[in-house]
Structure formats: C-alpha cells, structure tokens
C-alpha cells in the first residue's frame, strides 16, 4: 500500500559543501540516497520525495569532519502489511511456487498456498493450471494475493503471499474474456 508520510533522516555533509548552496547540496544528497534505495521495516521503501519540510541545525559529528543535519521531508512510501490484499504481476513460475511483483515489492507464493485444484506444468512456459485449463498462472498473469509475511533488507522489501483464500487468484479482466 502506498502512503504519503513525513520522514526524518540525518544527512551527513562534508565541509566542502558548506557554501551558499548548502541546502541544495543536502537535498541533492537525499535524492541520491533515495535513488539508491531507502528502506526500513517500519516505513517501507521510499518511492519518491515530494517536498522538504524542514532542515535543522547542523552538528559536527564527534571524531569526524562531517556535520549532521536532521532533514524532515515528505515522501511517497510503499509499505506492504501482513494481512493486506493486493494485485501483482507474475514474474517467474517454478515447481516451488511463483514470484510476483507489486511495484517495488517482490512476493513469493509457495505451491502449498496455491489452491489444490491447480497443478504445475513444466515446459517452454511453466504454468500452474486447473485440470480443465480454464485458469492459468504464468509469467505476466495478474493475480490478487494476500500478504502473510514481510521481510525487509536495506534496499528491498520481500513478502510471502497466498492465493488460497476466497476471492484470491488470477484476475479476469472483462477485456480479456
């Protein structure tokens, strides 16, 4: 789920950037950090900064030449929650299950959490399919799934999901019927 929230981050700046452009340099460095990926288990992954609220006073960090500035900024974050139901695009299918992506979030659905009436078929295009072939899960399929667990590392969020509950599974768009 996407949220618009205010976050605070301590940015360390080298004295060579202490000039009239100090504020711009801080903002540029913040943007670069976001581009590399700012991720936390509490707030999720920062997708884009929408504004800078406040830049506090800089304090010299003991033992170094850097100064640390607290920067408050507004941003769009992507934060999946356990129990949340969302739609995702399948990116890989194998006999253990399938991987899907919902924006910057990767989700794995194990074959144990795929309905029993769907079976794995390997081949040129590995798929999960019902015996009558009416419902198929393959690369680029859109599925609705429920998140049952999340794991966050420094730059990415990884989730585990299920499609074994009611109203979950492949999405049938009216256009494709």
């Amino acid at each position, binding site marked *: *789920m*996407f*949220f*618009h*929230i205010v976050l605070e981050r301590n940015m360390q700046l080298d004295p060579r950037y202490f000039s009239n452009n100090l504020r711009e340099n801080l903002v540029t460095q913040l943007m670069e950090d*976001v*581009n*590399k*990926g700012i991720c936390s*288990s*509490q*707030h999720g*992954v*920062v*997708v*884009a900064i*929408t504004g800078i609220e406040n830049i506090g006073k800089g304090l010299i960090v003991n033992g170094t030449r850097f100064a640390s500035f607290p920067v408050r900024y507004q941003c*769009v974050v*992507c*934060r999946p*929650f*356990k*129990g*949340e*139901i*969302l*739609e995702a*695009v399948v990116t890989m299918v194998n006999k253990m299950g399938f991987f899907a*992506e*919902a*924006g*910057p979030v990767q989700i794995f659905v194990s074959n144990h959490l795929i309905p029993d009436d769907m079976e794995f078929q390997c081949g040129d295009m590995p798929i999960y399919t019902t015996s009558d072939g009416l419902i198929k899960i393959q690369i680029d399929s859109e599925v*609705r799934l429920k*998140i049952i667990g*999340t794991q966050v590392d420094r730059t990415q969020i990884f989730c585990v999901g299920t499609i074994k*509950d*009611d*109203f979950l599974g492949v999405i049938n768009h009216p256009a494709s019927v």
Partner: protein
Amino acid sequence: MLRGEDEDASELKIGEDFLKAKCLMNSEVAILLEHRYDQMKQMSGDSTPLPQVFEKSLQYVKCFSRFTNQGSVKQVRDRYQLAEFELAVIGNLCPETVEEAKAIVPSLKTKGRGHDDEAVERLLNDLLMIKKFE
C-alpha cells in the same frame, strides 16, 4: 512502534503512524509519480536512467489504476466513515459484491462499526456510479 508479530491489516492493526497518515490509492500515486517524472525529465533530460524503485512503482500504479476522479471517491469515504486504508484497498481492488468486499477488507465486519450489509452495498454502488460516470 508496532512490532512485526502484532501487525495485521485485516484487523486494521497497521500502527499509529500509518493509521494517521494519508493512504494513497494507486490512481493517486499514478498522478503524483507522473508529475514527478515530468519534473525529473525537465531537470536532467531523457538520458538519465530512472531509479528502479521509482520506475517499477510508476509502471505498477499505471497498470492497476481504477479511478481518475479522486474528489468523488473521497466524498464516499467521508459519508461511510471508513479508515483511509480500508477505502484505498476497496478503491484499488473494486469488489463487485458485498461478500467480496467483506473478504478483502475483513475489518469492515468488526462489531460496532455500523457497517451492515446494506451499508456496504450502498458504498459499492456509489463507487460503481463514480466509475461509470467519470
């Protein structure tokens, strides 16, 4: 701070920070990110590659957007006293029946919130009207 084991979106346990925060539907995120994309293109030109997180998010929200008229959807939220998170989930997934809506947003079923089947049906009909006429 909400601990990992305590969080559960189906019971609306998503932590104070996020309950009070502005929850965005995919359509709203699409507008924001498109605007930001135009700004970034203006500043650094077409040659600079977009950050991966940004590009994946933009692609995703454009693909899974259901509404273009955000103002009316917000009115529906105020009328039915839904949490922002609940409205965003319903707005993103567009359930067609009351049963489906209660399955994807289980927190609607919580006793004492006044969301009986009729109220949920009216909400879904309102959203359907908005989608039809936008």
